[in-house]
């Protein structure tokens, strides 16, 4: 099994979710994160004091899939999340040793 972590722009969440449904992925975990890569932050001004805010809000989507689906899922996320502008995000794929469905105690591919 592979874990696919995608860090994307927040407004792309709905498109990514729909794209995952279309390739047969029903479950995912989503978190609100902050970060930056090469995208610069923005400046805020409070009573004349300027602050550069480096951290930008992003959304992290995590899914665990069977090995055979990994590249298909990753490609679907890229297509949905891309805007072509700086700050689109990144995808990391790592190996998962075991997965268990808590309700039924199924293991392995049938758990994801």
């Amino acid at each position, binding site marked *: 099994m592979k874990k696919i972590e995608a860090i994307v722009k927040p407004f792309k969440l709905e498109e990514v979710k729909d794209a995952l449904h279309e390739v047969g992925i029903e479950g995912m975990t989503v978190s609100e994160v902050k970060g930056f890569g090469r995208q610069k932050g923005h400046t*805020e*001004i409070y*009573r*004349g004091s300027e*602050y550069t805010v480096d951290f930008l809000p992003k959304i992290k989507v995590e899914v665990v899939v069977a090995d055979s689906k990994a590249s298909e899922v990753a490609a679907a996320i890229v297509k949905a999340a891309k805007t072509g502008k700086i700050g689109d995000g990144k995808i990391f794929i790592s190996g998962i040793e075991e997965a268990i469905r808590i309700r039924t105690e199924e293991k392995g591919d049938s758990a994801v």
Partner: protein
Amino acid sequence: MKKFLKPLLLGFLAVICAGVAFAQDAATPAAPLTVEQRLAELETKVNATGIDKGDNAWMLTSSALVLFMSLPGLALFYGGIVRKKNVLSVFAQIFATAGIAAIAWWAIGFSLAFAPDGNAIFGGTGWAFFKGVGGDPGTLATVSQNIFAIFQLTFAIITPALIVGAIAERMKFSAVLLFITIWLFLVYFPFAHMVWGGGYLATTIKAIDFAGGTVVHMTSGYSALVLAILLGKRIGYGKEPLPPHSVVLTATGTGILWVGWYGFNAGSAGAADGIAGNAFATTTFAAAIAGLTWGFAEWIFKGKPSVLGFSSGVIAGLVAITPAAGFVSVGSSIIFGVLGGLIPFFAVAYLKNWLGYDDALDTFGVHGVGGTLGAILTGVFADPKINSLVPESGLLVEQIKAVVVTAIWSVVATAVIAFIVKLVVGLRPTEEVEREGLDLAEHGEEGYHS
């Protein structure tokens, strides 16, 4: 229980009816009054000095409005500007200030500020524990003395609460309490007496101050500056961004303060009369125009007009018009608005960084500078045709003298008090407490649980 309800209710009604019947006297027709008798009664009523119900009603309302300025107005205004981890500490400090000021005022403060038979600095002690302070008029001819006393108490509450702004996020709660207690006695009570109670700044230096530009804003503003410098900067100031955690709260507080300020300024007329009306109008224009001016200044000099800027401008305008509200014309109040928005803007946006002090919530920049500006502009624009209390000439010089006295006194007194407080309880919390946040470390609470 239920089955007893009906008989209980009927029994209750029966008792009421019996009581009412008992209380009725048989009406006896009175002999009709002569025209002379009726005229005499009418003349007595018209000529009587004493409580004017309209004035009392307005002063009651004004007192409530000014208290609303402190809680929650100022608390929200300041609370929004500090970081999330310190939002409750602002409320705690203002609640505590209200309690301390109330006790001190009742015990001796009101007397020291307004009682006769005092000296140039303090009033007499005859009104300690509100002795003689009842429903009859006293200081004001047509207002119950107890209402006047509470009206003035609300000023004694908000003035030290303003100082909280300069030391936000980095002063121990115990130190704040001790500082405010001593400050009331060494600064507020004397100034209330010297300006409004017939003391030095009213008799020897003939300055005028309608609602508290000197007594409230300059004293707290200069004290705030000194305290901010003595305390030192917040950890991370100048390196980490320390943005307001909720401009929403700050803007809400601004609206509350503006409305409450009608009690502050128009209530200082001491009556529901034309002067109050004048103050009401000048206050409105100064606030609205100053808000717009600060916003525009930010737009021009900093790139975008911010809501924090509009809020700050409104407050600055209100501060500037405070000493002048019942003394100047509506036309002049527009100038107060423009200058009240511009000059404090420069003080906050440029002077603060240039001098390098951490006036966390800009108490000096807005109240100190704004109050000083207002006092001087009062000297220029006060008009005896608007208010007979305005002298025909020479006011500007007197106002400047009063500014100097106020600045020096506030600065020296604050330094002395800070020194005492530092010896007794210390001023700053430890670095860990400051980093953790005052809410959790000193009050055991979090403002928000996400």
